[in-house]
């Protein structure tokens, strides 16, 4: 269906189902249970899953396919956010024009930075992109304060000259971003038993876009263009000798992934109309690299999983404080309770970085292919398909290659 093979179609359908059912899947524990702390089905985090999923999918088109490691992708995210907020300030609170501008502007920036940076490869390329991104961060943080709002971030105010729309609502508040009247903040709650599910308009908007761009990246992965990009990753020198110039291909991949980042940035601003300079900092660029590697670089689903993992840790683990821990272990005798809490304490709350770091190390050491490889190993173990015994294959038939889409 839609130009995809049977296997890809079913994969896409699974992804669509998972994305649309996210509000249910992320809310596995009843509200009043102690484990409700681990529920992640609230609008802000779900939106973040979708948005950073888009960001990581785009990054993967560059890093996963061509092997060019950009350390400055957050710059495009920031550019997208700033353009979207300016669109909200000047034109309309409808999110569509904002997103369009975000994609165009970030594409232009990517073209410029990519044109310069792609003259080098390997570590030099990474350093160049890092330098550009840090430069843009520094500009946004201080010199360009009139345009970017500096440290405070660019935000809407009560006297924005909105051409198509009102500066303030009749109640005297700033209007909120909407899609032809459907406010991104709108959500409906559904209480069943002890559970409470939140279906948020903004999340579903992000989810639909995420599915569309996931489909697009799937098509890119399967296209001749994608094959060229893989060739760049495999052996660029050989490609040169066959008479092919890899530069246009890498530049196109760079611009496409920059536009993905810009789209993610625009969506971030659409969900929460503020653009802060910190989202362009090098730590933010490093984060998307971590997401992609954690999930599995070069796979379709990996970066999305990685993005979900990191955002989950950042938002859920960082909120477990000593108070919560004491409540969990209250059943233990007093002395023991304090010991257990003291042991867990460094790994939660402000120590969430530590837990994530350990997890990242474990994945890189034991699952070099990321979480996707872990999933593959699990399914293989359960299917009990007999591993082909190399001794019984004297003619060395090529082994089964894992499907790239997995």
């Amino acid at each position, binding site marked *: 269906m839609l130009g995809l093979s049977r296997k890809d179609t079913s994969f896409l359908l699974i992804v669509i189902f998972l994305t649309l059912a996210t509000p249910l899947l992320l809310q596995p524990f009843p509200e009043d249970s102690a484990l409700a702390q681990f529920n992640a089905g609230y609008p*802000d985090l779900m939106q973040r899953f979708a948005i950073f999923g888009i960001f990581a999918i785009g990054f993967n088109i560059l890093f996963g396919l061509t092997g060019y490691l950009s350390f400055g992708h957050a710059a495009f995210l920031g550019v997208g956010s700033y353009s979207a907020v300016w669109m909200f300030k000047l034109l309309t609170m409808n999110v569509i024009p904002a997103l369009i501008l975000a994609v165009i502007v970030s594409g232009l920036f990517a073209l410029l930075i990519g044109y310069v940076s792609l003259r080098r490869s390997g570590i030099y390329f990474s350093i160049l992109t890092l330098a550009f991104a840090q430069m843009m961060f520094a500009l946004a943080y*201080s010199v360009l304060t009139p345009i970017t709002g500096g*440290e405070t971030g660019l935000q809407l*105010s009560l006297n924005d000259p909105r051409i198509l729309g009102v500066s303030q609502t009749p109640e005297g508040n700033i209007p909120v971003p909407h899609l032809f009247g459907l406010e991104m903040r709108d959500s409906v709650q559904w209480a069943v038993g002890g559970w409470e599910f939140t279906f948020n308009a903004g999340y579903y908007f992000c989810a639909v876009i995420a599915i569309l761009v996931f489909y697009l990246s799937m098509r890119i992965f399967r296209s001749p263009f994608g094959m060229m990009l893989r060739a760049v990753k495999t052996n660029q020198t050989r490609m040169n000798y066959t008479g092919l110039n890899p530069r246009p291909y890498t530049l196109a991949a760079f611009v496409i992934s920059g536009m993905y980042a810009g789209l993610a940035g625009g969506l971030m601003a659409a969900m929460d109309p*503020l653009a*802060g300079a910190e989202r362009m900092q090098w730590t933010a660029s490093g984060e998307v690299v971590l997401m992609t590697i954690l999930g599995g670089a070069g796979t379709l689903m990996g970066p999305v999983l990685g993005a979900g993992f990191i955002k989950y840790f950042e938002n859920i683990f960082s909120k477990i404080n000593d108070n919560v821990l004491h409540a969990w272990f209250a059943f233990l005798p007093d002395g023991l309770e304090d010991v257990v809490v003291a042991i867990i304490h460094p790994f939660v709350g402000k120590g969430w970085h530590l837990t994530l770091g350990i997890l990242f190390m474990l994945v890189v050491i034991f699952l070099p292919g990321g979480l996707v490889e872990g999933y593959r190993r699990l399914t293989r173990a359960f299917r009990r398909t007999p591993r082909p015994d190399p001794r019984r294959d004297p003619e060395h038939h090529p082994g089964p290659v894992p499907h790239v889409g997995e």
Partner: protein
Amino acid sequence: MTTNFTRRGVLKTGAIAGAGVALPTIFTSRANAYTNEPTGDTVTLGFNVPQTGPYADEGADELRAYELAVEHLNGTGADNGMLETFSSKSLTGQGILGKRVEYVTGDTQTKSDAARASARSMIEKDGAIMITGGSSSGVAVAVQALCQEAGVIFMAGLTHANDTTGKDKRANGFRHFFNSYMSGAALAPVLANAYGTDRNAYYLTADYNWGYTTEEAISSATEAMGWTTVNKVKTPLGAGDFSSYITPVLQSDADTLVLVHYGGDMVNSLTNAVQFGLREAQKNGKDFQIVVPLFSRLMARGAGENIKGIFGSTNWHWSLPDAGSQAFVRSFGTKYGFPPSQAAHTCYVQALLYADAVERAGSFEPCAVVAALEGFEFDGLGNGPTLYRAADHQCFKDVLVVKGKENPQSEFDLLEIVEITPVEQVTYPPDHPQFAGGELGACNNGA
């Protein structure tokens, strides 16, 4: 592209998609009068403080203060802290409006984005009715705007830039901490007394919003006293080494250096300045002097010896003799073993002020709380008689001018109070040029 669209397939897909789109509208949203209306026997407050990053020390102290405030509000603490000295007597130690106070914490990381994400999760996931905390103005402004949109109250923590209650003020946000303008107005006369009225000042300013507003406030206040401004140089935030910025100071004809830095930056720049011999230097026949507009005890501890004799301003200091300050220092000291910082004080007071406003309003409804806080006059919370001005939601109270102590008695006894500047001297009209350009708007109850 393979053409495997069948009529049946298209119809099926359409039906599924249609059902998917229609699904959410089947359920009706819960009818609440305002965002996160507390319906059970507890009420949840959100404490959003920096737990990692450059201001983590202050964040930790803020969190300690909030925990203490919750104990006092619930009546479960060793004593009642400032509830005893607070001029309003509506708080009884029975929680707020009879509901037990619970809290959730989050990490702002001193980044606007992270702070907003953390605040949103408190509002959306944990049902927080009020967000408070923070240790930088960028975060305060960002979270304040978010709370306005979401329809909850924001009680700012440590935020000193004029913008928080100036061009970025919001109806749902309130600031107890003093601001850059007040620092300038309080410092200038003291500086003129101590160093004379014909000084040439050189500014090293942290390159972000707080730096800009503070630099403007100090320079305009001292220029009114007769000082001249030689140069204003922006320095990047978080630069470990400021020596390259100090050398030009020595070569200029400035005889006073104003370090508009905060936290670790201030510790580093002051240390550099002292290492370059600025304190022993002579210029224009006068001793060279250094001024630090915003002081905190945590910074003073970091700067050590270098802080001695240097003037600055602060919102509150634990050595203040009034009953409110003493009660707070006693409770805090009993629980944690050391005196609280100014960040801890302002956060503790903000929590109490919110709780009290809810009690007086008789409702958690944000607009009712805003009405109860606007124009509220109170005393007994450590800063003398204080007014929450209705026009911009800024507290007006005395400002402390402090000096690094020459002979500290302990590691906490680093600052001595030089003058308590009366509130009249630091009051400004709401439309003062340094605060112009913003509107409070209307309070928002959310949905």
